[in-house]
């Protein structure tokens, strides 16, 4: 297609219409593709030839205008609402009169259950690979929280269950309720906002509670942004979303998962009566233990003391006996005992006479007996 331009010297200038036509013709050569997004701002009027809506990327909020011939749109009977996820088959187009770029839809399909499941599975694999669901990431819940944050729909049975169970188990705890959307296209963003708001209120643990619902109803709880926000939440999060068989991804990212809202409440606060009872039992055990130790030490000390008291007397008796024994032996060894048996000691000039040849006849000797003694003269020697 030929686009006319006006030459001003060496400057080539296009009229707006010519420029738009040029770009439009270039765009029309691009291939027809499928684009996925959420429907917002759907505008349909009987007198318009086309239906318009904006396709929004749920991950980053990028927007794309879409137009579709009204007859074709009505023929699909999709009954679309804001927030519905769709696949649009079309090609880029420029609305020349306004210079507006948009996707010209040739066909439109609602994002079906199969697509949702496949997308969910892909997201689950991706987040699992990042380690968002890893057991090491799970934080222990506080034993007794000072303040519990509760995120729930307004007037929901889930809210009533959590509050009733918490009150029954542990009345003194303070519960801060954050009411928010729990289904629909705005739910994920609203829940994230509430999560952050509760964290600012200095809660020790957050319960995310929602009763059962359809697969689509629970989809916000698998929203990537919400799952990441739960994982990144500075306080532990208990997730109680849907029924046992539902496993929204926020359940996997939470620090603890409860099958029902009242189970979540049981995880979050201990049973006060039970705690007091356990404390009482522990205290009684403590006292018994202290008394037992005391008794044991007392008996041990008494035993040592008894033995200590006996010891000196024992020692004295033993010493006395040893002394007597020694005295006995001493006496047995004394020369006097020998004299008693009839022996005599003969001395000459003070020296003991042991042989006959040691004296001469006529020599004077001195004889000692057991009692007394006498002087004598030697008659003969042998």
């Amino acid at each position: 297609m030929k686009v006319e331009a006006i030459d001003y010297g060496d400057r080539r200038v296009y009229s707006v219409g010519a420029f738009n036509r040029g770009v439009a013709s270039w765009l029309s050569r691009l291939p027809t593709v499928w684009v996925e997004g959420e429907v917002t701002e759907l505008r349909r009027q009987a007198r318009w030839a086309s239906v318009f809506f904006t396709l929004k990327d749920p991950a980053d909020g990028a927007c794309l205008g879409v137009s579709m011939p009204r007859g074709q749109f009505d023929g699909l009977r999709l009954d679309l609402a804001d927030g519905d996820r769709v696949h649009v088959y079309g090609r880029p187009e420029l609305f020349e009169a306004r210079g507006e770029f948009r996707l010209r839809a040739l066909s439109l399909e609602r994002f079906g259950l199969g697509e949702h499941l496949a997308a969910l599975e892909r997201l689950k694999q991706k987040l699992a690979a990042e380690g968002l669901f890893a057991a090491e990431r799970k934080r222990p819940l506080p034993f007794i929280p000072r303040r519990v944050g509760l995120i729930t729909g307004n007037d929901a049975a889930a809210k009533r269950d959590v509050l009733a169970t918490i009150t029954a188990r542990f009345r003194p705890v303070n519960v801060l309720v954050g009411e928010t959307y729990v289904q629909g296209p705005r739910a994920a963003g609203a829940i994230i906002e509430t999560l952050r708001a509760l964290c600012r209120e200095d809660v020790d643990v957050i319960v995310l509670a929602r009763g059962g619902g359809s697969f689509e109803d629970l989809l916000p709880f698998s929203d990537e942004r919400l799952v990441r926000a739960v994982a990144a939440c500075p306080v532990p999060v208990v997730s109680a979303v849907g029924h046992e068989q539902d496993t929204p991804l926020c359940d996997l990212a939470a620090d603890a998962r409860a099958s029902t809202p009242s189970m979540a409440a049981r995880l979050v606060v201990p049973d006060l009566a039970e705690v007091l009872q356990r404390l009482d039992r522990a205290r009684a055990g403590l006292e018994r233990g202290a008394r037992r130790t005391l008794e044991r030490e007392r008996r041990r000390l008494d035993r040592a003391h008894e033995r200590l008291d006996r010891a000196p007397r024992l020692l004295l008796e033993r010493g006395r006996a040893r002394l007597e024994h020694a005295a006995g032996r001493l006496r047995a060894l004394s020369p006097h005992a020998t004299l008693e048996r009839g022996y005599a000691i003969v001395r000459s000039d003070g020296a003991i006479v042991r042989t006959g040849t040691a004296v001469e006849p006529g020599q004077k000797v001195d004889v000692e007996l057991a009692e007394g003694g006498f002087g004598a003269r030697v008659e003969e020697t042998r």
Partner: protein
Amino acid sequence: MSEQPTFEAAQKELEEIVHRLESGEAPLDEALKLWQRGEELYRLCKERLDAAEGKIEELASRAEAAKS
């Protein structure tokens, strides 16, 4: 031995003294000194146990009072 031995140290020393006296190894005047020391250690240990018992009673009655 320091001025204020722990209960365990005092008890251990007392038991060692008893053992030494009972073995009859110690000379008499040393044995008398050991006996004196032993009695001193016994008194010390007993005081500690009495104090501990008093403390237990006090804590127990305080816990009892807190309960009601």
